């Protein structure tokens, strides 16, 4: 029932208010004496060179893709898990087939070095 979820909305409002108050206090109370050296990015004392918004390795993207595909698997697992008693052998076999197909992909990614971080 949607009304069961109303408390979560209340919680959301309370925590947002808390975060907003904390951020406002920190903006209001502290002193404000900016200097160029203070505002420049920290690079272990060396003068910073180049922009920090540089391109990042493609590895991160690969990890995120693998995460999406396995995350979908998880979200299929949850309803299956709560229904498992009713589904019995039938449930076990259908999920085994589903995972088997994914495992082929998993092995392929493994063989291609998709899980190795060089």
């Amino acid at each position: 029932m949607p009304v069961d979820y109303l408390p979560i909305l209340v919680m959301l409002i309370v925590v947002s208010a808390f975060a907003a108050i904390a951020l406002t206090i920190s903006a209001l109370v502290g002193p404000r004496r900016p200097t160029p050296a203070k505002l420049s990015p920290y690079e272990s004392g060396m003068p910073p060179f180049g922009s920090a918004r540089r391109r990042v390795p493609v590895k991160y993207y690969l990890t995120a893709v693998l995460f999406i595909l396995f995350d979908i698997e998880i979200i299929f697992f949850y309803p299956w898990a709560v229904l498992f008693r009713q589904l019995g052998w039938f449930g076990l076999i259908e999920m085994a087939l589903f995972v088997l197909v994914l495992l082929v992909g998993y092995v392929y990614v493994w063989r291609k070095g998709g899980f190795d971080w060089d």
Partner: protein
Amino acid sequence: MTLDPFMVMLLDVLVKAIVIVVALLGAYAYMTLAERYVMARVQVRIGPNRVGRVGPIAVLQPVADAVKTIFKEDFCPANADKIVYTLAPGLAVAIALLAWAVIPLSPPLTIAGYTIHFYIADVGIAALYLLAVGSLGVYAIVLGGWSSNNKYSLLGGLRSAAQMISYEVSLGLALVGVLMISGSLSLVDIVEKQSPIWNVVWQPVGFVLYCICAVAETNRVPFDLPEAETELVAGYSTEYGSLKFALFYMAEYINIVTVSAIAATMFLGGYQGPFGLLPGAHWLLLKIAVFIFIFMWMRATLPRFRYDQLMRFGWKVLLPLGLANVFATAVVMVLLGR
């Protein structure tokens, strides 16, 4: 005088939400202190002693810390994305707190005909809610790192994000076994069904798996790569100061309490005592405290993983282990006909 039951419900929830936020704020403050003492003890040092080493005065240390943090300058680095830079710590702490909406703290109590439930919401999808909220935590870190306009921050944020998403899969899988046994996603149901025997008895592998993933999710030692001081300064929070930094820090500590509470709820019977003894919030708090102590102990003793080891461990060891655990549970359940 009659009260609208709906308004009473709203007020009830509002009070509970505020109490939980304040309690977690206090827990954060004293965890930082406790951690410094634990670390000092392990490393044979005295530990924090400016405010006072023993006795009631030592309790004021977090207050001193808080006052100091609040009155620090709240700066925004040059060329930073100001809006995202400000938003990220708030997001981090808000998401860390949100998980507490579904964790049951104690059995219901009836006083003068009014039943008080010690949870904010008992919803049918609670376990999924935890995963969903947890998956949003990545944003705060990646955005904090990106917006600071600092190479260390960006790399720290990205590393952290990649690590969190890698272990999230195994974390989700580790809980599947518990859900199969309980046949419900509601945390209240899950706790109630552990009355004589805790789930950890049936799901030892799931429990260990969950604990490992939980440490990785909270970016703690030995998985604290994102803020590996020797490589990345302070990771995604390098350019943060004042309360903004404190908020990131707070999010980290609240996440520790949260994953401990989830571990206790899912595997160790939540507020149930051993053998059904005197169920109540004290059991849950005790279990959480033990977990937190282990977190600190690990921080003081264990060395750090290398990043490639960490990723390989997550994808090549934990993920297959999690899948195997799910199917082993399934086969056993079908064979026993339960």
